């Protein structure tokens, strides 16, 4: 799937013209007495937190509401409903109000608007068309528009075909020879098999063959060495995920902070993968995405047992966790604590995770990528290896001065104040008290 990046630009002009035209004609036709433009501001200030013209939100979709009240023969009661729904219900004068009362447990809030303003609001609602979501240029990378990944297994198939062809050719040649041997008018003068011929050829070119052998051996050895160096190095690991979630859309385009979804990062060992209720904080209202429409967001809705049509959760709908694939995985024998680093140490997320707002799913950033980012400590060892951890512990200073009163680091501050010799030793040549000097290189800090 590849979108033409120019389309949104042209589209936005066409769209604006279309909206203006629709509003213009809409106001002419359906609600002659209302002013849609004035209605827009009123709608946004008074109604938009609960109503959408086309979508079921806290309240019902408002488009067609005028018609629905007219159908019930209560056009005039609509004004009373908007101004004070509760009063209309308790007056008992409106059958439709009674009907609507059972529609939703949350009551319609009385609105301080006059009849003309209500006309304007409904004029806007009737003229409303969903602005098409377009991928505009906002300085963020384009999510999920990467061309289909080239199949990594392609060369394997080519090789397999080549080998099968070679086998077939050899086989046919053998058959051919047998046929020639058995035919009466053909006498072969040698009875060597192909293997013998090959051996003979190899022996005659033994210098080249041994040279070739040495080269192959060297390549194999270096490859082995390279692979050995990759053991437990997970840089660039980007597993597939059950939902095509994109950090680009959430963190870059819509400016949601890391800590909103990974909310336990300051309180817990684990940063936290957001549970479905956190997704639903926004996706009750945002039911369609720009790239996959309702398909991917629908997976959240089904995980939550949520019905978009009714804006309601149902016990009868099956729910289930979203089984995200873990990206950053440390072995059991390592203890790592997010809150210690983020809350106590004040380390920014990018120091270890890189520029996540440019990734789609989760990805282990490489140390080169992280070094390019502004404000990060420059390191050399691969991310998530022990070398990388202790390299950072060696250069990162601890601000014992700014420690909270009576905290662990405040105690260290006091002890250092009372022991100038130790302080001098800790400060050393670089003049900073690093994590290493406070025990960051002790085995038992992380391995216990």
């Amino acid at each position, binding site marked *: 799937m590849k979108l033409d990046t120019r389309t949104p630009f042209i589209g936005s002009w066409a769209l604006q013209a279309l909206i203006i035209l629709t509003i213009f004609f809409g106001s002419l036709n359906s609600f002659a007495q209302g002013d849609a433009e004035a209605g827009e501001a009123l709608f946004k200030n008074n109604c938009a*937190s609960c109503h959408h013209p086309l979508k079921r939100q806290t309240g019902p979709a408002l488009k067609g509401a005028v018609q629905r009240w007219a159908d019930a023969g209560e056009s005039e009661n609509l004004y009373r409903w908007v101004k004070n729904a509760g009063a209309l219900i308790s007056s008992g004068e409106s059958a439709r109000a009674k009907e609507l009362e059972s529609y939703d*447990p*949350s009551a319609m809030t009385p609105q301080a608007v006059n009849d003309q303003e209500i006309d304007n609001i409904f004029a806007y609602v009737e003229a409303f068309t969903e602005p098409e979501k377009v991928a505009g240029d906002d300085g963020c990378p384009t999510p999920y528009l990467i061309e289909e990944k080239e199949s990594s297994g392609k060369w394997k198939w080519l090789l397999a075909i080549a080998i099968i062809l070679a086998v077939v050719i050899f086989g046919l040649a053998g058959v051919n020879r047998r046929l020639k041997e058995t035919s009466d008018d053909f006498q072969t003068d040698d009875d060597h*098999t192909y293997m013998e011929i090959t051996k003979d050829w190899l022996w005659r070119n033994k210098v080249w063959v041994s040279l070739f052998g040495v080269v192959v051996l060297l390549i194999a050895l270096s490859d082995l060495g390279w692979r050995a160096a990759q053991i*437990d190095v997970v840089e660039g690991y980007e597993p597939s995920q059950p939902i095509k979630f994109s950090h680009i859309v959430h963190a870059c385009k819509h*400016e949601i902070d890391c800590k909103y979804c990974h909310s336990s990062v300051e309180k817990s060992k684990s940063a936290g993968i957001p549970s479905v209720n956190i997704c639903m904080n926004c996706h*009750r*209202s945002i039911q369609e995405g720009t790239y996959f429409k309702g398909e991917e967001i629908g997976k959240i809705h089904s995980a939550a047992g949520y019905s978009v049509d009714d804006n309601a959760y149902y016990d009868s709908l099956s729910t289930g966790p979203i089984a995200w694939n873990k990206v950053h995985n440390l072995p059991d024998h390592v203890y790592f604590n997010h809150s210690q680093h983020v809350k106590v140490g004040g380390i920014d997320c990018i120091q270890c995770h890189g520029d996540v707002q440019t990734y789609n799913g989760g990805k282990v950033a490489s140390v080169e990528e992280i070094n390019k980012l502004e404000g990060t400590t420059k390191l050399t060892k691969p991310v998530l290896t022990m070398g990388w951890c202790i390299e950072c512990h060696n250069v990162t200073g601890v601000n014992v001065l700014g420690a909270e009163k009576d905290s662990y680091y405040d105690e260290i501050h006091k002890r250092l104040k009372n022991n100038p010799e130790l302080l001098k030793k800790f400060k050393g040549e670089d003049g900073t008290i690093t994590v290493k000097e406070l025990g960051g290189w002790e085995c038992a800090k992380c391995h216990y």
Partner: protein
Amino acid sequence: MRNFRKIKISKTVAFCGLAIALMSSCTKSEDSAGYEYTPDMYRSPAIETYVDYGMIKDRMVDSLTKVQSARLPVEGTIPFHSDPSSAAIAMPYALKDPIKDYDAADSLVSPIQVSQENIDEGKRIYSFMCVHCHGEEGKGNGAVVEKAGHAAPGAYDGALKDLSVGKMFHTLTHGKGMMGSHASQLTKKERWQVIQYVQVLQHGGTHPAMEEAVSDTVQTEEVVMPVEPTGGEAVNEEGH
């Protein structure tokens, strides 16, 4: 001779098959993190956070997968705080119904004192928990509203200007309208701290309770006030 050749051909085929199998075993799948020393340390049989631990000795046990491993505290338990002033926060929130109890929440009072410290912490929490919908100044124009089309919350200096702290707490705890519950993301104390900052936004930059305090200090410490802006470092030195 004929048999000999046949064997040769089948041997060649077998060798090729082996070669292909070997090569394919060396390529990396997208969902594999790569070579691991001690793989059972990476995917441990012991329960780990956010790890599907249904795998026991390479065997999938379906009854263990997709079961929430994080448990809620037992009903009725309250967290222990050594500080007695936190007791009010530790008690469970009595108003359980999101809609019916909304009006009852109106009379709630904050269990924490209004202080600059709490307001600053509230502001910090607001900056990552609320800002993307409610906007920097609480006008209901955050990026999620403006760019992603989320229903717009009311402005703190407009429709929500007179919203009481109790109702705010109730909304943060249970959600209201299109806003979901944030109880899983914020502790009760953090909720009350955010509310203090929201009150600041409601009142155009100063907390109503702090306003009086400020005017008090101005009266008593009039001479000290002008020194404060430059005094920041001096305080630090003193602490040192």
